[in-house]
């Protein structure tokens, strides 16, 4: 249990960390705060639904994804305006129904749609890039308890063994004291 990590790393399956199961939202939040306050950083919480206040309990920084969305929106607006001007008022000019080659009022609808489209695509793709998904394999899936209940009705906290403050006995104790129903050791292949 308490052997140094360097030794286990050499042989077969490597300890990835601990996975502790909790029964309720309140227990999860309390445990996460204990883990955070213990100075651990390579940890994660798992819940079947977005838990209100979990991000603060975990001490997560506000995501910068809104900037990606904003960038997408600006790019979309600029692209739409340039495209409409260039195609209708520069590259291929023709008079139709007495309208100017390029008029801002008629350019607004497509500009709006492309603004929304690129902003939304930016947010959508940004989300999966930032979350590093798809990732079909992950060590926590090795746990049968996790597979059975993590997306249904149970709450988990995982602490990774490569955390600088990870301590095989101490971390297990921390999780147990925090009220874990059980603490499981998870291996990476």
């Amino acid at each position, binding site marked *: 249990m308490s052997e140094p990590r360097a030794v286990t790393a050499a042989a077969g399956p490597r300890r990835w960390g601990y996975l502790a199961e909790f029964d309720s939202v309140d227990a999860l939040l309390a445990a996460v705060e204990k883990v955070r306050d213990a100075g651990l950083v390579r940890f994660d919480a798992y819940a079947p639904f977005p838990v*209100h206040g979990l991000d603060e309990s975990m001490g997560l920084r506000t995501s910068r994804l*809104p900037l990606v969305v*904003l960038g997408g929106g600006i790019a979309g607006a600029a692209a739409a305006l340039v495209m409409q001007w260039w195609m209708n008022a520069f590259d291929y000019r023709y008079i139709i129904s*007495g*309208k100017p080659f390029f*008029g801002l*009022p*008629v350019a*607004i609808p497509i500009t709006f749609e492309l603004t929304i489209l690129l902003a939304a695509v930016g947010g959508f793709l940004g989300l999966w890039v930032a979350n590093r998904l798809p990732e079909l394999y992950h060590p926590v899936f090795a746990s049968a308890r996790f597979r059975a209940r993590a997306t249904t009705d149970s709450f988990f906290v995982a602490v990774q063994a490569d955390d600088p403050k990870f301590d095989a006995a101490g971390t297990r104790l921390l999780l147990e004291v925090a009220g874990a129903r059980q603490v499981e050791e998870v291996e990476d292949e």
Partner: protein
Amino acid sequence: MMSQVSGPVSEQRRLGAMGERLWRGAALAGVVALGVSLGVAAATPDGWRRFFFAYLLAFAYVLSLALGSLYFVLLHHLTNSGWSVVVRRIAELFAGTLPFLGVLGLPLVFAAGELYPWARAGFVGAPGKAAYLNVPFFAARWVVYLAVWGALGGLYLRRSSAQDVSGDASLSVTMRRWSAPAMIAFALTLSFAAFDLLMSLDPGWYSTIFGVYYFAGAAVGVYALLPLVAFLLQRAGFIRRSVSVEHYHDLGKLLFGFVVFWAYIAFSQYMLQWYANLPEETHWFVVRQQHGWGWVGLALVFGHFLIPFAALLSRAPKRRPRFLAAVAAWMLVMHWVDLYWLVMPAASPATPALHVVDLTVLAGLVCLLVAAAAFLARGRALLPEGDPRLAESLAFENA
């Protein structure tokens, strides 16, 4: 949290002596400003004509704030809202001024001949409309609108104040039950008031969206008015514990939303008439694009839409009450510019320049509006203390 706020009141919730000073001072200032306006009107050539237009403009402005407030109160009950309880009284006070505004609105009937071409003898510019556009019918409609608004504004303020004392939850049920028919009456009277008051300044022009346009401005008005008034009250030491950053945040979101809604409605009206290019419609915009009026329109595009859009887009600015109050004050100015752009080209198509009487009448009516609201606040709490949802509102938090 909950016990802390629903326990003994530990904040100033009544205006008290300051309210007395406020209403007397504002009323005096309003009367003086109107007196000055009358003097200016009498002293300048063509001054009376400009005075009446300035009065119409200022009245349409304060009316839109009061109607916006009525809309806020009705919507609050209609949707069974929780978060907005703590700011509802402010809206109720402004909606409660509607009976008084009704009195202020009567001069417009007598000035119809000055303001509206169709009210002048021998007008032939809008054939076939005389059945609607005539002074007696105009006056009768006007009385109906003012009666409906006055009744609703007064009723909701009285019911809610009664609940402060009794805490009777059944009052909430009654107010809610009446909110749906009241909203229908509100929508119809507001639309037709907009047609009568503003659209018929140019009797040849028509736009089916015009009622919605005036409503959008009124909604921007109230969602700017509430954070500004709440901020000023808090700065003066009132309701400091009840109205929190969370409430400002929500008001800011709604202000942002209705700034966009206004832009959507304004764009729809402009683009559709621009595109179809029918002379009987476009002349209205042509007047508003010539002789410097185009700059006012451009100022609206930036000041009424793009600047507040950028200012309120992200989360943080909406959670800074001081900043939000500044944006709200800016929007109240721009809302006035919007009405100026609607009204004044009818009076002075040749130049958008301000006339001094525009500002003095505006100051007069705004002061009287504030005085009326402060007068109504006497003996009332600044938030509906007896509302069963008050605790929910106090504990409210943006997820």
